[in-house]
């Protein structure tokens, strides 16, 4: 954890109204997590308690306390994708993922008429069947 990189992120957003979430987004993107050390440094810089910062970090799904080393594939399992059969793809998807890839359930990627849908990084995939989803997982 580089303190100077973190300090630069904090300094970049410090003048904004409500700077905490933009800071946390950049920290998560830079380090892959928001660690307790980062929470402490952000708290000191924004004149907040560590508990306040930790409360925010632990509230939101996008922030994680430790970095995920594996590739992540997000699979939507909300109502519209369920109606289009995502649940029947899950056994083969889990088999394809094994321990190598992290399958992460999300609720809605906003492509609800052409599901099932998945997301890897900022790349979206739609109209998936079992082989297509398995291929995405293998290439992740």
């Amino acid at each position: 954890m580089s303190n100077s990189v973190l300090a630069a992120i904090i300094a970049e957003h410090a003048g904004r109204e409500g700077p905490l979430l933009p800071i946390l987004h950049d920290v998560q993107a830079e380090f892959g997590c928001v660690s307790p050390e980062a929470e402490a440094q952000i708290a000191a810089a924004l004149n907040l308690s560590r508990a306040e910062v930790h409360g925010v970090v632990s509230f939101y799904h996008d922030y994680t306390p430790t970095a995920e080393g594996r590739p992540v594939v997000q699979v939507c399992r909300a109502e519209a994708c369920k109606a289009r059969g995502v649940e029947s793809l899950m056994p083969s998807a889990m088999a394809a993922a094994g321990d190598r890839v992290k399958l992460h359930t999300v609720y809605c990627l906003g492509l609800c008429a052409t599901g099932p849908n998945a997301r890897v990084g900022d790349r979206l995939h739609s109209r998936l069947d079992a082989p297509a989803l398995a291929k995405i997982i293998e290439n992740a």
Partner: protein
Amino acid sequence: MMLIKISDDALARALGADELAEAFAAKGHEVHRTSSWGMQWLEPLVEIDGKGFGPATLGDVDAILNGSSDKAIGVIEQHPFIAGQTRFTFARAGKTRPTSLADYHATGGWQGLMRARQIGPEQIIAEVLESGLRGRGGAGFPTGIKWKTVAGAVADQKYIVCNADEGDSATFADRMVMEGDPFQLIEGMAIAGEAVGATRGYIYVRSEYPDAIRKLNEALVQCADIIAPFVCEVRMGAGAYVCGEETSLLNSLEGKRGEVRAKPPLPALEGLFGKPTVVNNVLSLAAVPHILAEGGSAAYAQQGMGRSKGTMPIQLAGNIKHGGLYEVAFGVTLGELVNVIGGGTASGRPVKAVQVGGPLGAYLHPDQFDIVFDYEAYTAADALIGHGGITVFDDTADMGSMARFAMEFCAAESCGKCTPCRIGSTRGVELIDRIRAGGRKRDVIELAPQMQNTVKDQGRSVAEEVALLTDLCETMKFGSLCALGGFTPYPVMSALKHWPEDFAPEARAVLEAAE
């Protein structure tokens, strides 16, 4: 060389539109990346001289160019799905390049803002009131009244906050506005700023929409001088569904946990950073430029029925043959939307259930297909329009498991501030599991002779568990702080009412006996 139009909407891109555009460009044609027409079952849709081809793959490129493609759908604007719509908010859909300021100018852009600046705050609010526009986020509160409240508040700073945390499954109209016509949303916010005296605006976009965030930022850079002195900024959410609730959204913008605030005070008086704040949904704000254009408010008010004026961008999703964006005046029946416009299920099997209004909306039975799209009609049927999303399920759906999922979703996304939602949702999952297991038997410990105070009977029957679930839903409905806990009972109780056999074989008899 031909001019070829292909959408750069996230949905089209997820289905290979980028690769398709490159293939046409490689053959020496000019490719314009436009917004999406909203006919999502045909994406990626290729448009040449007004004629459409879809869903196109790389293998179709040559056939499309030489006119022999079997993917031809004819003239797009004459397609029944497009011709049947009344498009105000989506008037530019499919026609313009989303982040082209020139395209926006050429199609009537900024006329609403220019006129708003001439007529002044009072007249702007009068015209929004006259249009009958109601909040499109779900609550249906009259937009003009909200603006009037903020305009009347005295403060050194006021805010316009756009709620673009479109987390409901089956909704994508906000995304399509932000990706397809970002200037229209920004213009709507600038007009709102003009009306209430706010100079700062925030667009709170969920992190699941990276394309929308990128395009809004591109658009904001280009039009900063036009909307000045109004200043607008995009903020990204962090994966919390509950932040679509306006007060938790405000907390999130302030850099706090996205917990719901008790009302009053109303955000209109004490909102972002304690200042008077307009919080409007994307669709409400995006409807405003049209309403403020010459004669716009009267044209808007002419559409619709009863107290539901204007048009609603309805989103047809789930297991539906012709899914997509359908903007139409209020008053259309659910049966027409699902069976005629949507063409029934994609799987070809009979429709079993239709959920209207996202994860918190009721499941409607095909017997109820004559219900008309109107805020009051849905409320009367113990259902809600919400954000206008419609999810169709075929007869393979297990409604008991969908009811369980509604409770599970509420438990996962509850902000934890109020007890009915935080604890009730978890107890709800357990209750539905027990009903599906045929009731609750006494366990070994309870039956042990040493446990003198436990009742040594057969345990709780399905009838008693159903009564408990009903009671729990009543508590959540009336005791929760916001719509998450308050509306989760809608999908649960509607599923139980219409498809009790999906919960337990004896559940129908139990419900009939209870009535």
